[in-house]
């Protein structure tokens, strides 16, 4: 495909255009209920962003990490403290700095990846998850000595304008997600991403071809943690509207891992598909439980069933399509294209 604008092909620009029209015009005109923004679209964007972070380290660089929620917590609490203590920084500035703080944690806890891989690395990254949550919980300074345990997040103010309605918050999340997604795509396609993938496919071979393992792995962990940190800050400020360490426990890390794997390892659009699926499926299941069985099934049973189905899907995808839903979507598009061209030939 020939690039038409900078290095982007025609297909890229059409995709971007379709997404922009959909998210900026169609969704705001047709969706009026607040529920959709506060409970589905905003968390979807935040979690998709965190999943991109997980993708960078797991899907592209092939390092099994399980601490996304810890970095999200670091980002969220950094944001809270920055707005509280350094008000001059502004919302966007604080968001970037809190991402950088999370990235520093990412570098620290990514260092073991130089020595170990696979399950060993997973344990090392679990340390980050437990340590960060513990640190925030135990040192009152991070929570501004608030004893209740739950802190209300400050209002979002950008350039003097408050962004407090669900729709406005949706636009904030959308803007951040769009910028960071484009950045991630650029990185994944450029030499950075090629180095990541070389390390993923065979680290020893990559090293002998001159790819610096130290630089590549640390870079991947830093960028991953940056994305998670920003996502965590948005998650706390736009979705939860409060800050509590419990919200970022190991369960959220697993959730993001599932989004990453089911969505499709090593794809950016997989992050969005996976996040949408993991978020929407419980909603759908609850709706079925309430409307078809009229609440005859206990809510705890429904959540257990949800867990079983996620687990089963994970196994089924690993066996039949390790590349996840993004690959299924790709196959579907191929099939449709093939059908269209063959029917054109007949006529």
């Amino acid at each position, binding site marked *: 495909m020939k690039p038409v604008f900078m290095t982007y092909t025609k297909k890229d620009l059409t995709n971007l255009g379709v997404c922009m029209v959909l998210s900026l015009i169609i969704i705001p005109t047709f969706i009026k209920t607040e529920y959709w923004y506060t409970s589905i679209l905003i968390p979807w964007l935040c979690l998709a962003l965190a999943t991109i972070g997980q993708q960078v380290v797991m899907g592209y660089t092939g390092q099994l990490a399980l601490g996304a929620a810890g970095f999200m917590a670091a980002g969220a609490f950094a944001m809270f403290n920055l707005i509280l203590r350094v008000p001059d920084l502004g919302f966007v500035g604080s968001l970037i700095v809190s991402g950088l703080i999370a990235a520093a944690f990412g570098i620290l806890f990514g260092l073991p990846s130089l020595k170990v891989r696979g399950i060993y690395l*997973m344990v090392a990254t679990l340390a980050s998850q*437990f340590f960060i949550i513990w640190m925030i919980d135990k040192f009152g300074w991070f929570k501004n000595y608030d004893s209740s345990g739950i802190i209300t997040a400050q209002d979002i103010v950008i350039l003097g304008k408050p962004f407090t309605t669900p729709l406005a918050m949706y636009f904030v999340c959308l803007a951040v997600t769009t910028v960071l997604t484009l950045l991630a795509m650029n990185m994944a396609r450029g030499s950075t991403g090629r180095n990541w993938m070389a390390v993923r496919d065979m680290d020893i071979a990559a090293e002998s071809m001159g790819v610096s393992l130290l630089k590549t792995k640390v870079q991947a962990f830093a960028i991953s943690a940056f994305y998670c940190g920003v996502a965590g800050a948005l998650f706390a400020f736009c979705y939860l509207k409060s800050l509590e360490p419990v919200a970022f426990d190991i369960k959220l890390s697993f959730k993001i891992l599932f989004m990453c794997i089911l969505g499709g390892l090593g794809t950016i659009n997989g992050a969005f598909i996976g996040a949408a699926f993991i978020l929407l499926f419980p909603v759908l299941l609850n709706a079925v439980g309430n409307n078809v069985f009229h609440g005859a099934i206990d809510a705890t049973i429904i959540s257990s069933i949800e*867990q079983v189905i996620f687990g089963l899907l994970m196994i089924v995808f*690993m066996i039949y399509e390790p590349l996840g839903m993004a690959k299924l979507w790709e196959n579907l598009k191929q099939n449709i294209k093939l059908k269209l061209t063959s029917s054109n030939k007949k006529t």
Partner: protein
Amino acid sequence: MVEELLFFMEVLVGGLLAGTMYSLVALGFVLIFKASATFNFSQGAMVFFSVLAFCGFMQDFNIPFVLAFILAALLMVVVGLCTERLVLRPLMNASEDTVLMATIGLGYVLEGLAQAAWGVEVRRLDLGIGDFPVPWIADNLKLFISALDIFAGLVAALMIIGLSLLFKFTKIGLGLRAVADDAGAASSIGIPLKHIMLLVWSAAGVVALVAGCMWGARAGVQFALVDLALKALPVLIIGGFSSIPGAIIGGLIIGATEKVLEVYIGPFFGGAIEGWAPYVLAIFFLLYRPEGLFGEKIIRRV
């Protein structure tokens, strides 16, 4: 001075014995890793599933203790069989990481099934052994050590001796080691791969049940058991993934360090460092001895 020393001993012994509880969970991981070089992330879920089933049989159906234990063990054999058939066999040629992710999925399935079948409330499990200091030891040695801890230590020791003997001296054990070394070569000389896998997964299931009983008697049978089982991971890293004695030594190290750190250093940081101290300890081990104390050296080729 003497009192301080006694207190330190008490903390240390308590930690060591609590460590055997981690060892019991770690043992299940080691069994499967030894035989199939697969890391079974669902071991924690298996602990939860098996002991919840055991409690369910006893409390919901009024089945006597021994019979319920046997039924639960049989259930774990069925789980092992299904896992081998439906998860492991299709993934025979897949990469290690793929199998690991599939076992994470398996863990989710087991957790969900257990909660759907037996509910989410915390259940009490009474083994007939109290979680209180043994009077005889308290009187004579001035140490307060829980009877349950001692019992768990004994059970762990018995299981480890039994399994070590099995691996070392029986034909099955030889087969297990052959499969672990090179599954393809082992099956080409006629070792029944499927039976070996079934056996290992069933054994891991029973080990999970025993570990679950110990944990359940202490902390109640509840979902938190799954998180507790995560602590078996640093134990494995310290002991080595493929070593049965490693599992016990690792457990002892983790148990003792965690308790001693918590009592002597914890107060300076506001306590509850137990949550992450084992993982940080594991990181240090990873940096200096990635294969663990007793593990085999990992050699990778391009």
